[in-house]
């Protein structure tokens, strides 16, 4: 029995050009392909950027929705993933800005604990409270962005500069500071960088 053409196309996967064309025409198959091919990577990057799995899920969902809405205007100057990541970064910055403004209500704090389903998952807890999460959380947003773009997204210096709209020198300076800060913040027993932090090294 013959399969519908769209299903056959989706099974084979789209190349970047087909995906861009599909997004411009807001083809549901292309949107599905976008989520399937980039969703997980984007979600992981969002988790590292904001340190919270539930927030990361919301951020990625909003990123994809914005991408679908602005798909017809996508000029294809960068790769689809870089474009998506740019949207995610903007949303993450807003998220961090909003969190800074958040005022904790004592009444809410005294309320009964949430049901088990609403607790963050084990991975979430690990990500937030783990050594890496804590160290990342201690960095400022710009330093965290540069670190993640460099070592998770595997971007070159000039690519990071272009992505963030800053100079190569600023990228290198932030990266240098972020690495030093991570080495300082990560406790010796969980430091996976082969040795203890630079301060520990200096003491020895």
């Amino acid at each position, binding site marked *: 029995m013959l399969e519908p053409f769209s299903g056959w196309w989706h099974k084979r996967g789209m190349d970047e050009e087909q995906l861009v064309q599909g997004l411009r025409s807001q083809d549901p198959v292309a949107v*599905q392909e976008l*989520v399937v091919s980039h969703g*997980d990577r984007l979600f992981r990057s969002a988790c590292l950027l904001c340190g919270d799995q539930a927030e990361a*899920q919301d951020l990625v969902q909003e990123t994809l929705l914005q991408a679908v809405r602005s798909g017809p205007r996508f000029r294809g100057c960068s790769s689809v993933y870089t474009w998506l990541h740019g949207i995610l970064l903007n949303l993450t910055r807003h998220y961090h800005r909003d969190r800074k403004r958040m005022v904790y209500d004592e009444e809410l704090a005294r309320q009964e604990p949430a049901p088990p389903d609403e607790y963050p998952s084990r991975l979430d807890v690990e990500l937030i409270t783990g050594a890496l999460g804590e160290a990342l959380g201690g960095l400022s947003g710009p330093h965290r962005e540069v670190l993640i773009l460099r070592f998770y997204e595997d971007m070159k210096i000039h690519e990071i500069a272009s992505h963030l709209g800053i100079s190569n020198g600023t990228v290198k300076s932030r990266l240098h500071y972020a690495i030093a800060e991570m080495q300082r913040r990560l406790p010796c027993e969980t430091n*996976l960088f082969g040795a203890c932090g630079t301060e520990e090294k200096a003491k020895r």
Partner: protein
Amino acid sequence: MNCRGFKHRLYEYLDGTLSRAAQVGAERHLSGCAACRQALRQERQIAQSFSDKFQRTTESLHLPPEVQRRVLAALASQRGARGQEQGIVFSWGRLAWPLALAASVLLLLAGVFFFARGPRPQTVLPQPQLAGGGVLVELSYVVPTYTFRQESGFVIDALIYQTNVINERLPAELTRLK
């Protein structure tokens, strides 16, 4: 290239984005500088460690399937809303041609009607009386003719005005009527 210059370009060296000349200079410096070789090795280890740690921490994370469902549902609703807007525009579009045609026909008929009535028969003032008491009268009038024909899918129309002139001799009895 000295140590300071190499450390300044260390990231570009790792990225392989140095110019050819700078690359050669960096290689030459590295071959003779143990401290910079150590710095390079350390930078590679740091990069590898960060990369491994980030990958390990996040590799079990997957975007929940409901996100895909929500995005596709939002797209469907957006397309539905746009489809409705297009429907309204389309219905007007369907009416546009008949309306334009009707307006053209009305204008044409108005033109024909106006010109049919417009150029009224012109009566030339009575000429001097002829012998026998009669008057020579020259009467001119316009006859509009509207024609149309079809050529290779197009309808070509034409409005032609023909002026007719009549020269008549009015008998003497009629000239006395006024």
